[in-house]
């Protein structure tokens, strides 16, 4: 009996428009175990959202293409699943919440109706009454008063809207929750509350989660494992301890941590990572971090690095190891 819930193998995703072909995901490998929270970290443009959308098969129709790889949910390869079957999985086995709560809810339906919809879609044998009760339960679970279920989204604040979004996502108790920067659009204080709530729910329902973020602070609060993503691939992955306290790291990871200002030290300048991520329409041959890496060696320019296991749980994709 394996603990594995989701396994992504060698995923390649491209976007193609009239003007250019964007290589968004390039050979991604990822595993999430049951009940585990994985933080997927990277800067804008790394391909994190694309990965999540690929799992949900919600990539924009005409312009995107999954070129290679497998996304295994248990035994099922989601890439090969038909759309009609995928709809049964969405909302029920895998849920996703998105970044901007302000626009994620339908302005013309009450929040009660929007939560109830998930139940209508997946719990076919529930009566209307039962659904109503369950909606009340869920609202309570996310800390919203049940008597507001006939109100419309515009009557709620940003933080409350995000709770509704989370309520919708967890209504059917999915096995996996994909959360794409769920707190980025919120005030810092609300952020803390929402994260706290998510942590509690996750524990209660034993839901696995992939938390996409660029905020290392958020990762530290809630994640069990961390995967660092750069230019469409995972360049380092390990437990929270491995990444935050371990000694060996990918140069990019060092750069990321180094760029966070330390509240205890007095500094005059910030330490950004020099340069910009490579143009996704025109990726370099060797290591994609080559041109920004302070520790690069000749081989980095020409040969792609492969996964090097540092220990059981810690992996780094770099020529230095």
């Amino acid at each position, binding site marked *: 009996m394996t603990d594995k819930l989701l396994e992504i193998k060698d995923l390649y995703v491209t976007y193609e428009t009239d003007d250019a072909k964007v290589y968004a995901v390039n050979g991604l490998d990822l595993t999430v175990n049951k009940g585990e929270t994985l933080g997927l970290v990277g800067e804008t443009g790394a391909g994190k959202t694309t990965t999540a959308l690929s799992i*949900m098969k*919600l990539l924009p129709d005409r312009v995107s293409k999954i070129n290679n790889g497998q996304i295994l949910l248990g035994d099922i390869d989601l890439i090969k699943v038909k759309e009609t079957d995928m709809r*049964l999985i*969405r909302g029920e086995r895998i*849920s996703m919440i*998105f970044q901007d709560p302000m626009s*994620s809810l*339908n302005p013309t339906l009450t929040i009660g109706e929007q939560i109830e919809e998930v139940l209508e*879609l997946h719990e076919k044998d529930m009566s209307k009454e039962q659904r109503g009760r369950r909606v009340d339960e869920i609202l309570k679970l996310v800390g919203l008063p049940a008597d507001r279920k006939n109100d419309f989204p515009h009557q709620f604040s940003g933080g409350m809207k995000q709770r509704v979004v989370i309520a*919708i996502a967890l209504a059917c108790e999915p096995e996996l929750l994909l959360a794409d920067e769920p707190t980025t659009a919120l005030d810092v204080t609300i952020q803390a509350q929402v994260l706290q709530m998510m942590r509690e729910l996750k524990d209660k329902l034993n839901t696995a989660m992939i938390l996409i973020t660029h905020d290392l602070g958020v990762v530290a609060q809630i994640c069990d494992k961390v995967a660092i993503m750069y230019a469409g691939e995972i360049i380092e992955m390990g437990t929270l301890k491995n990444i935050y306290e371990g000694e060996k790291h990918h140069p990019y990871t060092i750069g990321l941590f180094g760029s966070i200002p330390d509240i205890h030290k007095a500094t005059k300048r910030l330490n950004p990572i020099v340069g910009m991520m490579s143009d996704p329409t025109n990726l370099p041959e060797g290591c994609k971090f080559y041109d920004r890496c302070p520790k690069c060696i000749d081989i980095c320019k020409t040969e792609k690095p492969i996964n090097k296991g540092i220990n059981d749980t810690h992996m780094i994709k770099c020529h230095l190891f």
Partner: protein
Amino acid sequence: MAKYILKRLLMMLPVILGISFLLFSIMNLTPGDPARLRLGEFATQEDVEKLREEMGLNENFFIRYINYLKDAVRGDFGNSYNTNLPVMKDILARFPVTLRLSFNGICLAVLIGIPVGIISAVKQYTIVDTTSLILALLLAAMPVFWLGLILILVFSLKLDLLPSNGIDTWIHYILPSLTLSATSIATLIRMTRSTMLEVIRQDYIRTAKAKGANERRIVFKHALRNALLPVVTVIGINFGVLLGGAVVVESVFGIPGLGTLMINAVKMKDTPTVMASIMFAAMLAGVVNLAVDILYTYIDPRVKTQYL
């Protein structure tokens, strides 16, 4: 809600007053002496002067305006310079005809235009989409009276299927209503299509998909409700244009409505009739606009919660 309606009606009042003043001023610019017109070339100057006194034409502009208003409020819009009969009589006889015609027009436009627009948006880039867009382009470029003539040519003269004149039976209303609705159909197809396309790209549609909803549910339960909101507003605004078209359509099909009354009155320089018919047309447009706005407050939850 009642308060809102009342407020809007009150707001209409200054506009109506404004219209009456505007029209009165414009009509006042008309060259020619109405009394002279009535009595004819051969009448003596004395007689003309007498009639002018009777008609109150020698008074100051503003006094004449106030008098006009005073009478109008009581339902007296003066007598036609032509027939010397009360204008109101003609208006009351013809107004319902125009009302019926425009109402038919707008209903047809909604029943045809909106569904075609929806289908066009959902099946974007297919041949259905291209066809409806071309249809909309052509309908929008056609003069409404030309379309009427062509329809008469085909259905009346050549095929002898439908009547081309008068309003005796409901069948008589078919061609004119269809003609009238054409431009609005074009507008609604394009408008509905564009709002649907915009709505489909919104984040909450993505949320609905992530829930596992199928296409039908997304289109009807989520997209449509949101897309129709701006479309409803457009229908209200478009009604004014439709009414302008009604005037011409009545002329084409020989329909005894407000439009033909207006046109004849203009040609005969029958000022009271012209003023009254224009005012009624404007008021009709205003009332329809108001009705649509009120409807809107019911269907948009963001506005509804403010007023209800």
